[in-house]
């Protein structure tokens, strides 16, 4: 499905953030990437859809190496990769419906998008998705009038609107309170499992990662130091991922 090979990224030459990452993602299931701040989790996930340009390595997705794609082919590939962001990244001054439909921009010409002439089928699906994420009746509200939890629901719906074959989530719950975090995770993983979309999630919260993922990847110092099912994630492993041990008790 997605195979990352010897991926490296250095924002400043000689100071790599990611060092020779090798990772295979199966066509199903929830993969959580955990690790301390600054270990390159976010960079890794952004290299996949090239919001960040990798320095070297290969990312094979649907039979093509994303790293080598031209701008036009990259746009084509991005249509199949949905993304959910830590700070939701909704277009604040647009309505909930416009934000959802922005998930279809890869399929609609700019001229049509400017005039808001989206295909009726897309609009119908957007309304259905609003029901699914529990925001029925919010279609015409502006995004900046929503609460954090509601915004992230819109963010998830926008990503699912793409009908993606892969979902990326960059710290999707880090700006939310604990209760809303759980609800958002339930929604995200629920939709993904129901539609058979594989998900890669960056997380701070080890407990949430354990609870919702099928596989946990632990990163430290730009490298993968743990890769396995949540059950195998021992205190000893956490110690090597985050360093120190006082915080565990």
């Amino acid at each position: 499905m997605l195979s990352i090979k010897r991926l490296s990224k250095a924002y400043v030459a000689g100071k790599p953030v990611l060092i020779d990452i090798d990772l295979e993602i199966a066509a199903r299931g929830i993969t959580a990437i955990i690790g301390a701040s600054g270990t390159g989790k976010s960079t890794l996930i952004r290299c996949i859809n090239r919001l960040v340009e990798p320095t070297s390595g290969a990312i094979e997705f649907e039979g093509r190496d994303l790293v080598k794609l031209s701008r036009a082919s990259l746009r084509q590939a991005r249509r199949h990769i949905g993304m959910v962001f830590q700070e939701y990244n909704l277009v604040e001054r647009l309505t909930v419906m416009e934000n959802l439909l922005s998930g279809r921009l890869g399929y609609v010409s700019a001229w049509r998008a400017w005039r808001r002439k989206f295909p009726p089928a897309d609009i119908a699906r957007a309304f259905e998705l609003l029901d699914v994420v529990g925001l029925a009746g919010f279609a015409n509200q502006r995004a900046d009038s929503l609460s954090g939890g509601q915004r992230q629901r819109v963010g998830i719906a926008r990503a699912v609107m793409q009908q993606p074959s892969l979902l990326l989530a960059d710290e999707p719950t880090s700006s939310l309170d604990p209760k809303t975090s759980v609800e958002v995770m339930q929604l995200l993983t629920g939709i993904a499992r129901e539609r058979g979309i594989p998900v890669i999630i960056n997380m701070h919260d080890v407990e949430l990662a354990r609870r919702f993922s099928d596989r946990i990847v632990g990163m430290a110092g730009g490298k993968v130091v743990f890769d396995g099912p949540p059950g195998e994630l021992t205190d000893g492993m956490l110690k090597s991922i985050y360093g120190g041990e006082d915080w565990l008790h």
Partner: protein
Amino acid sequence: MSTAAARPDPFPVDGWKRAGWVLLAAYVVYAAAQMDVSWDRVVSGLHNARHFFERLFPPNFSRWDLLIKGLAESLQIAVLASALGIALSLPIGLAASRNLVPAWMSWPARLLIVAARSFHPVIVAILFVKAVGFGALAGILALALASIGFTAKLFAEAIEEISLKQVEAVRATGAPFGSVIGIGVLPQVFARFIGFATYQLDSNLRNSTMVGIVGAGGIGGTLFAAFQRFDYDFVCAILISIIALIMLGELLATGVRAIFIDGASIADLFRRSPGAPAGRHARLPEDD
């Protein structure tokens, strides 16, 4: 523990600053002496002014047809120059925003804006009168150029302040560049752009009453001719009409801003209490 004597003076005397002020005062005195601004000169000037103001009143509206024609032409110059200038400002401002376009594109656009800003509209109007001849066309082109210098610059600055997170999200969906601009960028700056555009219309209206002085069309030509013929009562009528036109323009600009930025309806504009649209404005700050 330091003693009182050891502590530094909290209000030290800055010799350079003091010298600067003294220098400035000396220059003002020197310049006044050079320009022969003496008390006698002020007295004779005031005397002349009294004579002038006496002849201004009462205003003479008998040549109202000339007045209306000039005002209408000024209005047309202002509206056409604003439409042309603002329409061109959109792409130029976008091209000049350093956060969205590569440097090889933003530098020429910025140079163009600097060039459009460097001269006062009257100087530009003189150039256009020489280039395309007397009349409204020269005024329109001059004010359109001035509009680009102002609106495109502010528009570029507004774009440089947007949240790139929203743009990133739109980009991540595989949207083409045009859609990234239309959906990710424009909604963030649209309200401010409307603000700039209405200020520009307002300013063009003012300037369109003046470019006529150099022969570029509008009421300014009529005003200048009246001055030269010492028709001061007609001058007064023209000045009063210009004030009325500017006030009308200001009302119009306020209305446009209320509709586009505060989401007011046409009916809201005629309501007496300004509280209704203001309440909405509190939720939609213009430059967040």
